[in-house]
Every structure is written in C-alpha cells, then in structure tokens.
C-alpha cells in the first residue's frame, strides 16, 4: 500500500516539474522555430534572433539593462559589505531597528516602492530617466546584497585576522590582505544578486523611467501588452532568460566556494 502511495507521489512531483518547466521550455523552443506560428514546428532557425540583433531599440534596451544592473551591483556590493560588516562585528544601540529596516525593501510589495519613488521624484522635481531608475534600483538592491553578505560573514573565523595583526598588519591592511580575499565569494554573490534583481526589475523601472528610457523588461512588457505573443518576443525573452540563469549558476558556484 505504501508502495502505491510512493509511486503516486513520485508521479505527482514529476507532473509539477512538467508544469513548472513546460511553458518556459516551449517558449524557448519556439523561438528557434522557422515559422511565424507559435505551435507548429517548421524547422530550426535563428531568424528571430537575427531580427532582434538588427533592431537598434532592442540593443539600446539591452545596453541600458546591462549598465544599470552593473552600476547597481557595484554600489550595492560596496555598501552592502560595509553594512554587513558593521551588523556582524559591532553592537550599538538601535542595531536591531536597523536590522529590521534592512528587511523592509525585501518584504514590501514592489509596487508600493515603485510609486513611492515616483512621488519622491515628482515632489522634488527631478526629471525621470536613467538616473532615477538606477537610484531606485540601488535603494532596493543594497538590502538584498547586505543580507546575503551578512549570511556569509556569520561563520567567519576571526583568528586569521588576529594572526595578521600579530604579524604587523593594522586594521586596514588586515582587511585587504586577509579578510576581503576570504569573504570575496560572498561579496560577489551579493553583487550578482543585486545585478539580477536590477536586471529583472520591471515595476520600479516602469514607474521611474519616464518616456525616454527603456530597459529589457520594459521592452518585453511593451511588446507583450501591445502585440501579444510573437516569435521575436520569444527570442528576446529567451535571451533575457539565459542571462538571468547564467548569473544564477555563477551565484550558485560561488555559494559553494
């Protein structure tokens, strides 16, 4: 009897996996379809990707996504490391309040953050565009990076730092020669998470980009809500997806380091 249940459970899990992967796999597969049709396979072709590559608006959006995400990642890595460091190493009044505040950006519904940023810019009269997008992304990404880096710092054995000090390294030199190399995988993982969060972001960008600035998610949304499903969009989605997955794999590798 138990055997039957186990088999049923196994079959069920398999079905759920199919459910989770099928839409994505189908979308990716049909981006290579040598036909305008979404459901009939005519042969392997890269024509939709060629169309993409030929489209300057797509390149612009890709370029924007990349530099916004890179800048977000860089700033979040540095600020996130500094913050995580203080949270782990020092104790002071108000630390727990600060700790909880770090979690707010992660827990609050994204749309409320998006609209609050918009209002902030409206009120202060700052014109919407690339800068407002990056600023908003960083505000959100610092928390993600700090939380990840902090998790890595928790088990850190400080005796190597004491050893360095006993060998003549002051606090700053100890950090750069000993501590940083050892926490680097965690720091980079935090940076990659910040990159991904920025790269994939839609709603905050939508609210703060204004008319002239577009990132990949914005482009995808524009195409999907206006024109619906199309092979070009499949191709664009696939490209975006591959980048996200690639980043995730690197992050995974780093977390095992």
């Amino acid at each position, binding site marked *: 009897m138990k055997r039957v249940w186990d088999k049923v459970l196994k079959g069920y899990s398999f079905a759920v996996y199919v459910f989770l992967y099928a*839409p994505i796999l189908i979308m990716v597969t049909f981006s290579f379809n040598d036909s305008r049709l979404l459901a009939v396979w005519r042969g392997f072709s890269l024509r939709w990707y060629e169309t993409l590559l030929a489209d300057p608006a797509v390149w612009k959006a890709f370029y924007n996504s990349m530099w916004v995400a890179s800048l977000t990642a860089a700033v979040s890595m540095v600020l996130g490391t500094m913050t995580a460091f203080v949270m782990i190493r020092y104790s002071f009044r108000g630390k727990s309040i600060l700790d909880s505040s770090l979690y707010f950006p992660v827990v609050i519904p994204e749309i409320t953050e998006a609209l609050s940023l918009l209002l902030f810019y409206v009120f202060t009269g700052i014109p919407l565009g690339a800068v407002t997008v990056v600023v908003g992304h960083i505000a959100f990404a610092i928390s993600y990076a700090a939380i990840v880096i902090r998790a890595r710092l928790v088990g850190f054995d400080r005796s190597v730092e004491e050893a360095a000090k006993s060998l003549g390294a002051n606090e700053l030199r100890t950090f750069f020669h000993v501590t940083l190399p050892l926490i680097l995988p965690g720091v980079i993982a935090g940076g990659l998470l910040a990159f991904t969060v920025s790269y994939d972001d839609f709603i905050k960008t939508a609210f703060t980009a204004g008319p002239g600035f577009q990132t990949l998610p914005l482009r995808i949304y524009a195409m999907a*809500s206006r024109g619906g499903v199309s092979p070009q969009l499949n191709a664009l989605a696939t490209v975006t997806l591959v980048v996200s997955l690639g980043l995730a794999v690197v992050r995974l590798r780093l977390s095992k380091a």
Partner: protein
Amino acid sequence: MNSLPQAVRRRKTRRFAAPLLLSPTVIYLAVFFFAPFAIVLLYAFGMIDILRQFSFAATFDFYLDFFDSIAPLVFARSLLLALATTAACLVLGYPMSYHIAVKSGRRKETLMLLVIIPFWVSFLLRTYALMTILDVNGIINAALLSLGLISQPLNLMYNTQAVLLGMIYNYLPFMILPLYASMEKLDKSLLEAAGSLGAGPARAFLHVTLPMTRSGVGAGSILVFVPAVGEFIIPQLLGGTESFMIGNLIWTLFLKARNLWFGSAVSIILIALVVLMVALYMKYVTKGEEMVI
C-alpha cells in the same frame, strides 16, 4: 633584534569605525527609501498640492473617496485571488515538498535545485511564457484543435482563470521552498515512534508531520499571500477587466490618470493591509519563533 616600539598610540579610532561604515547606507536608505514613503503619506493626506507646495492642512478626503469608488471591490477581489492562490499553492506544493524532502534521499538537493531554477527567471518572463502557451495560436489550443476536441480555439487568456493560473505558476516555488525547509528538519524517528505506538501512516501524518511543518506552512503562506495581493504583471498581461486588481488600480491611477492623491491613499491602505497581515502572522503563526525566509 629585539627592539620594542617606543610609540604609544591611542585606540580611539575603533569607536568611529561603526558609524562611519554604516552612514552611507543609512543616508541612502533614509533618502531614497524611507523619505519617499513619507511623501506618499503626505500626498495621501492632501498635504502636497498640484504645484508641489507643502501645507499642514491634512484631509481625509482621499480616504473617503476610497469608499465611494471601485477600490473596495478591487481590494476584495485581490484578497480573494491572493487567498485562492495561497490555498492552491499549499495544496499543490505540499505533496511535492514532502516527496522531495522525505522520500528522495540523496537526490533531494538536486530536486530542490530543479524547483529553484524557474524561480531565477523573472515573473515577467514566466508570465509571458504562460502567454505563449495559452494564446489563441498557442500550443494548448493547437493540440486541442488537432486532436479534434474543439472546433474553434478557446479564449484561455484575459480572464480570471488565466490570472489564477498565472499566479499559481509564478508563486508555487515561494511555497515549496519554505515547506521543504521545514520538512527537511523533520526527524524521521518521530514518525517511526508514532508508528510503533500504533499510528497508521494517515494518522502519523495528521498528528506528527502536519503540526511539525506548521512553520513552513505559515512562512510559505505569507510569502505567497502578501506579494500576491499587490501583484501587477500577472493580472495586467493575463487578465481582463473582471480581474482588475490593486496593482492594476495603482498603475492606472499613477501612470494613466495621474491622480497622485487618490493613488497615494489607495497605496497607504494597501501598505496598512500588508503590515496588518504580517503582524497577525508574526503574532499567531510564528508566536515569536524565527521566520523561515
């Protein structure tokens, strides 16, 4: 060889390190995260006018407008949809998590990784992927047509069912992960003990497994319910007018109608709702235990 240093240095610099390292983040978040929320509050109470002038004259008018509008209906619908999504994710996800955590032995980490991978793809892309198969020309319709089960393609999108499907599809990993985490910690010997005391598998499940995975159920539920209430992309791409949710309302108010004041009031009510739900969760579900994030 053994000369000892003569210089004596004070070690006061240590006291300044913490504030110095922390201040950039604190300032940044204060300006670009917390201050904006304060501004939302000001708009919601009508304390900033269309010319961006501030005044102390607060008003509840926009909140009262809330009740005269379609907003309460939209809120109720969103709560219901979020609830349905959470329930469905729980029912669908629980057996899956159980299978991976308890019945898979050494393969559980790989299996869990396979659950997480779709998670790494953004909601936008996953929702779009769903669109490609639900579309009139999509694979589901094509298959049904070619099998002769239907003569005309079905309108699978732009309705509430599609939205619900999309929500479940996107949020399922959010439920499976914490459930898995709580089940992984389950001590198999407890189940064996229950068995030796005469409990069959069904009763062992009911009296041992279910209560012990309560924290996972709670965490998964809140991780699905809270963001689901404020969801925008899924109802926007997959839904129709009948599935207009809070997210869509806020989008319309801010980006289409430019009604910053009413929009702010709606947002404040949403935030209050979220805070309330989280507070209730912390009080009744976790009862002070650590949250499984």
